[in-house]
C-alpha cells in the first residue's frame, strides 16, 4: 500500500472540499477500497474518511411513502430493517445474497454503488486495463473472460459491475443524491454508471469531489407481493454473480399489469431490461410469456469471449426470476437468499431450471 494523507472532515462541505483535490478518495467502510489499495490498483494521495459524517446513516420514510437511505447505512442494517424489507423485498434479498455477513455489517450503501469491477485484469497491475490505466488496452479481451460482459461492452472494456444491490435499484429507478462542488444534485441510478464506449471505460458520471449522500426509492407497493432476486454463483454462497436477475410484477388476476426487470453480472452497469418489461404488459403470466420477455431482454447480447453460455444462462435466470416472482414474494426470506435452487422449506415452482 502506498503512503497517503489521512483526512477526517467533520462536515459534508469540508469533505467535498477535501475530496475535490486530485488524488483524493473517500473512505466509508473500505471493504473494497482497502483491498484495492493493498494490491496497488488504487494509489490515493489522500484518503478522506467520511465514515463519521453526521446524518448519513439513517433510513427515513417520507410522507409520500418513499424512502431515503443515507449513504452510510450498512448493507445488513438496510436488509434486516423490517419495514424496508417488507416494502422492497427484492432489494433485501439482493443485499443478503451479496458478500458475507462480516462484509455486509461493514459495507455501506454508497460504497456498494461505487464498487469496482472484479475483472482479474483490472486487479492485476501487470496487465493492460483501460479502466485502471486509460489507453493501456484490455488484456481481458484475449484472456480468461468466461465471466465477462455480454451486453453493452466495447473492445475498450468487457468488465462487469459486481453489485447485487444495484440490480433491483435499477429496476426501481432509485434516485442517487450527490453532494458536489456546485452543491446538491440527483440522478437516476441508470444514469450513474457509464458503459464503455469506443474510446474509453469511464465508470461513472461522478466528477472530482462528488460524494453520494443517499438514495431515494419511490413508493412501490404495487410490486411488493411479486418480487424476487435470483443469482447464479459458482459456489453456494459468498460469491459474485455469474448472472443475476430481478423480477418485480404487478398482477391483475393472472395478467401482468406492469413489470420491472433488470439483470446483473452481464454488463458494466446494472442492466435494466426495458424491452422485456414492455413485452410483458397485459400478458398472462405463463412460461411462454416469460420466455418471450427473456428473449427480448437479451436481443442485443453477444459474447465478448468464451462467455456465450452466459447469454443462455441469463435467459434462464430471468425466466426463473419471473417464475418465482409470479409465485409470490416468500413470507420469510429463504435460507439461501436469491438461490435459484429450490428452498428445502417450500415447494419448488413449476418449470425446469435447466430447460431454456
Amino acid at each position, binding site marked *: 500500500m502506498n*503512503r497517503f494523507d489521512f483526512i477526517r472532515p467533520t462536515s459534508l462541505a469540508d469533505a467535498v472540499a477535501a475530496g475535490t483535490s486530485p488524488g483524493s478518495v473517500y*473512505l466509508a467502510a*473500505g471493504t473494497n477500497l482497502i483491498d484495492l489499495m493493498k494490491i496497488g490498483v488504487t494509489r490515493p494521495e489522500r484518503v478522506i474518511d467520511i465514515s463519521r459524517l453526521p446524518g448519513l446513516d439513517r433510513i427515513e420514510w417520507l410522507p409520500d411513502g418513499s424512502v431515503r437511505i443515507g449513504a452510510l447505512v450498512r448493507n445488513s442494517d438496510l436488509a434486516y430493517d423490517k419495514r424496508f424489507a417488507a416494502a422492497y423485498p427484492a432489494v433485501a434479498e439482493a443485499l443478503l445474497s451479496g458478500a*458475507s*455477513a*462480516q*462484509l455486509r455489517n461493514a459495507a455501506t450503501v454508497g460504497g456498494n454503488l461505487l464498487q469496482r469491477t472484479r475483472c482479474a485484469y483490472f486487479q492485476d497491475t501487470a496487465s493492460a486495463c483501460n479502466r485502471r490505466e486509460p489507453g493501456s488496452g484490455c488484456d481481458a479481451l484475449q484472456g480468461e473472460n468466461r465471466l465477462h460482459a455480454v451486453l453493452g461492452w466495447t473492445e475498450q472494456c468487457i468488465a462487469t459491475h459486481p453489485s447485487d444491490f444495484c440490480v433491483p435499484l435499477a429496476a426501481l429507478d432509485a434516485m442517487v443524491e450527490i453532494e458536489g462542488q456546485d452543491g446538491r444534485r440527483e440522478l437516476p441510478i441508470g444514469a450513474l454508471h457509464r458503459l464503455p464506449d469506443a474510446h474509453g471505460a469511464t465508470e461513472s458520471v461522478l466528477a472530482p469531489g462528488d460524494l453520494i449522500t443517499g438514495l431515494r426509492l419511490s413508493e412501490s407497493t404495487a410490486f411488493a407481493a411479486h418480487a424476487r432476486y435470483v443469482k447464479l454463483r459458482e459456489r453456494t*454462497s459468498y460469491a459474485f454473480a455469474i448472472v443475476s436477475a430481478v423480477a418485480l410484477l404487478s398482477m391483475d388476476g393472472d395478467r401482468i399489469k406492469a413489470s420491472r426487470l433488470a439483470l446483473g453480472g452481464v454488463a458494466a452497469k446494472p442492466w435494466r431490461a426495458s424491452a422485456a418489461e414492455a413485452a410483458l404488459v397485459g400478458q398472462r403470466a405463463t412460461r411462454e410469456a416469460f420466455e418471450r420477455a427473456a428473449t427480448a431482454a437479451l436481443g442485443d447480447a453477444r459474447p465478448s469471449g468464451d462467455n456465450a453460455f452466459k447469454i443462455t444462462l441469463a435467459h434462464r435466470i430471468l425466466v426463473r426470476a419471473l417464475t418465482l416472482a409470479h409465485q409470490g414474494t416468500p413470507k420469510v426470506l429463504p*435460507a*439461501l437468499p436469491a438461490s435459484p435452487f429450490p428452498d428445502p422449506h417450500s415447494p419448488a415452482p413449476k418449470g425446469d431450471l435447466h430447460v431454456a
Partner: protein
Amino acid sequence: MPFSISLTVNGQPNSIALDDPRVTLLDLLRERLHLTGTKKGCDRGQCGACTVLLDGRRINACLTLAASLDGSTVTTIEGLANGSELHPVQAAFIACDGLQCGYCTPGQIMSAVGLLSEGHAGDDPERVRELMSGNICRCGAYQGITQAVLEAGQAISQQNRPVPAEGSENGRSAA
C-alpha cells in the same frame, strides 16, 4: 502526520499513537497490541480468519483502517472467556469438534458469536451455514462448526431463559 486514536479492546481502554495511517485493525491488534489470536489468512476479506466484533458486530479486521476507528470498541477471541470459564461458543466448538488445525477457529468463533447476537439463523442449520459462509475452513470442519453454532445458540438461549422466581408471577431474567 502522527495522530492518536482511542480504542477499547476487550474492555481495556487504549490510547494508540499511529505514525502511519496504513495500519489495519488486524495489524494493530497483532503487531502493536500483541493480540495474536486474531489471524491473518488472506488479508483481503475473503477468508474470515480476522473476524472480530467492532462495536458488537462481526467484521473483517483486515479491511478496516485503524485510523478510522477512533472511539470504537473491539472484542477479539482473547476477550471472550470469563476468566477460566469459556464462552458458550468456545465450549461448543470443543464439544462438537468444530476444528482441525485451528487456524481459522478464532475467526469462526468470533463470527459465530456475531451470528448468534444478530439472531437471524434460529435453529436452522441451512441458515447457520449461509450466515457462516464468510469463514473458510481449509480443513473442512464445517459439519462440526455448524453443529457447534447450533448448540451454542441453544446453550445461550437456555442461559437467558427467565427463571421463575419465588413469589414472582413473571419471573426474573437469569442473565
